[in-house]
């Protein structure tokens, strides 16, 4: 029963690096425990549960606004009809939202949530096995028809599979895959959702781990999962940079008044004192201005010796980043570099630089 290897689909690896696993290794858990877990497979853990409100225009508008989705078919009757629809429709990916329980229900679960054999029982069983933490890994949605205001949706959830124990970057855990089925007031199928979470045993704090490569890619097959890199202190002045980095865009702050580029960023232009700024995206070319090879002290998130560089970009600003793809003894001040990206963990993407020559050879 290793159906969760499908987690290698593109969605999961881009949305959550932690889902990379070492296939086929399960720890010797007690057979009785395995049996109790297996009993949940195929079982309905949440019976048909209607959403609190029918599909309605105000919630659609709020959703579209929050998502920045300006497609008029969600809010404008005439525009919707112009596309051949009978009227406005709800965004397809909103299907889950119609059946969300809301905050009050989350903090005070209803009786059906704690029914014997229900989802709560499965979570309790996983807790018993030490899998006390959870992270969502991926979600595959299939839509049958568009929802319109007045539809009233109910969801029902069935366990599809529970994986053997896997080693992941977050700790040893099991992928739990359920299928949620969404039906309308007439019982008609609206959508299905294959919903996968990792229930895991959080790793012990402070336990040393090594990354495989100097630049420090995340979990590698067979390697002990790494500790997370120190978190950047993100505030109102630098958040844009780290947000762009998560999209693998290396941005440079630019004064909107005088055009001067600056890094590290700040709220005010050192050249003209303007508070107005925007960003430009770096072309990702530069050269090595200086570097250090770190040996001691060691932090568990990194592999040593660790190369840290001051890179001078072609745009003229400098930044600190790790060097990868080059041995410490081969590093030379002045060597041309190209940008690459490191997804250190689900929350942190950072630029890394590689020698330009190795890419061209």
């Amino acid at each position, binding site marked *: 029963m290793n159906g969760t290897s499908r987690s290698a689909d593109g969605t999961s690896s881009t949305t959550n690096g932690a889902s990379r696993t070492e296939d086929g290794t399960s720890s010797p858990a007690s057979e009785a425990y395995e049996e109790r877990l297996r009993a949940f497979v195929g079982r309905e853990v949440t019976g048909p549960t209607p959403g609190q409100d029918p599909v309605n225009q105000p919630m659609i508008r709020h959703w579209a606004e929050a998502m920045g989705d300006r497609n008029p078919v969600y809010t404008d009757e005439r525009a919707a009809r112009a596309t051949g629809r009978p009227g406005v429709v709800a965004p397809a990916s909103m299907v889950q939202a119609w059946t969300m329980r809301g905050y009050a229900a989350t903090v005070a679960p209803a009786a059906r949530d704690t029914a014997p054999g229900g989802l709560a029982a499965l979570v309790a069983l996983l807790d018993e096995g030490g899998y006390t933490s959870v992270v969502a890994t991926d979600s595959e949605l299939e839509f049958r028809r568009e929802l319109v205001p007045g539809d009233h949706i109910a969801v029902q959830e069935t366990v599809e599979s529970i994986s053997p124990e896997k080693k992941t970057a977050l700790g040893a855990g099991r992928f739990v895959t359920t299928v949620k089925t969404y039906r309308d007031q007439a019982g008609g199928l609206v959508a299905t959702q294959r919903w996968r979470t990792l229930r895991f045993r959080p790793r012990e704090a402070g336990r040393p781990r090594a990354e495989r490569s100097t630049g420090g890619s995340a979990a590698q097959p067979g390697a002990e999962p790494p500790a997370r890199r120190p978190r*950047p202190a993100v505030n109102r002045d630098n958040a844009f940079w780290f947000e762009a980095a998560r999209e693998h865009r290396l941005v440079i702050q630019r004064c909107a008044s005088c055009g001067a580029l600056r890094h590290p960023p700040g709220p005010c232009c050192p050249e003209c004192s303007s508070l107005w700024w925007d960003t430009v995206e770096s072309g990702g070319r530069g050269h090595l201005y*200086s570097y*250090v090879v770190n040996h001691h002290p060691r932090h568990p998130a990194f592999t040593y010796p660790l190369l840290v560089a001051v890179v001078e970009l072609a745009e003229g600003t400098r930044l600190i980043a790790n060097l990868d793809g080059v041995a410490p003894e081969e590093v030379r001040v002045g060597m041309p570099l190209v940008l690459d990206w490191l997804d250190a963990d689900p929350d*942190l993407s950072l630029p890394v630089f590689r020698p330009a020559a190795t890419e061209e050879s």
Partner: protein
Amino acid sequence: MRAGTLRGAAAIAGIGATEFSKDSGRSELQLACEAVLAALADAGLRPADVDGLVTFTAETNSEIHVARNTGMGEVSFFSRVGYGGGAGCGTVQQAAMAVATGAAEVVVCYRAFNERSGERYGLGQADRPMDTSADRAAYAWMTPFGLHTPAQWVALFARRYMHEYGADGDDFGRVAVVDRKHAATNPAAWFYQRPITLEDHRSSRWIAEPLRLLDCCQETDGGQALVVVSAERARDLPHPPALIHGAAQGLGRDQHMMTSYYRPSISGIPEMGLVARQLYAQSGLGPLDVDAAILYDHFTPLVLPQLEELGFCARGEAKDFIADGHLEVGGRLPANTHGGQLGEAYLHGMNGIAEGVRLVRGTSVNQPEGVGHVLVTAGTGVPTSGLVLGGER
């Protein structure tokens, strides 16, 4: 650069320290009290005479605790200086200005910590608590990349300096060797009777390449205090006054905390150049009038550009200046005669100011001939400060 009115207005009349150890076995506050009392005794003054206190923002022993515990009475001036080791000489500048303006008459500057047995700065910033301040946000450009420690920050300057001027590891190692040579004859030094050779330096392990273990200063438990009074009052006290001929701070353009890598050039120390220009303007002296120096040596590589910024040699020539033996007792500029922070103790540079006073008094364990003026520097890589001390001659 203006001369100002500070020259010769105040003097350091007393110095006092605890022993320098790796595990003091007592509180940081007790270390501070012991150092303050020792400095006052050296000055021939009592705690009740003190009406001013200056320390570092990094200091954990607040003025109220030191004043109350040592039996000081009313304190009319208290001030702190920021930026870690860059504060050292700045505390004396604050004290001298307070004395010169009448804000206080007897000002004690102090620094005490269990930096080895307690919180070790050398372990770096990786796991410090988060907040959204600009100071903490600055670490966002370092710690996620594994750039955590002072040695690593300095190494990036050192590598660039090597690239531009052809310096190598031996050029840094010679600084360590001369420091340890001086410490070897200083009974107060942690490395008393333990000199090193250049070969020892070459074979010491990498910490943050190009920095080796012996390029890095030690970590110390201890306390150091200094007593500043007017020059006039100092003349009535037991020791010959160490007159403050110049005292200055410097924060350079595009200054960061230990990581000013974004300036057009990073092979110099512009904030130290700013300090030097002020010191010479205030004192009316030039590099040739300086007979000895205490150069901040948390890490050896930044001693080289200090010599250049202070005008003792031209840019890129510090390696030759050092190799020619000019930092030795008997050389052109005897330096760190107490052993420096590599050899004596790491007291955030405050022990170096005390050695500057001893050089003026003529009481250093490695006393060179004819020391008229001593230049003392504070931390490098940070906003910094400096002093020129001298005798009555």
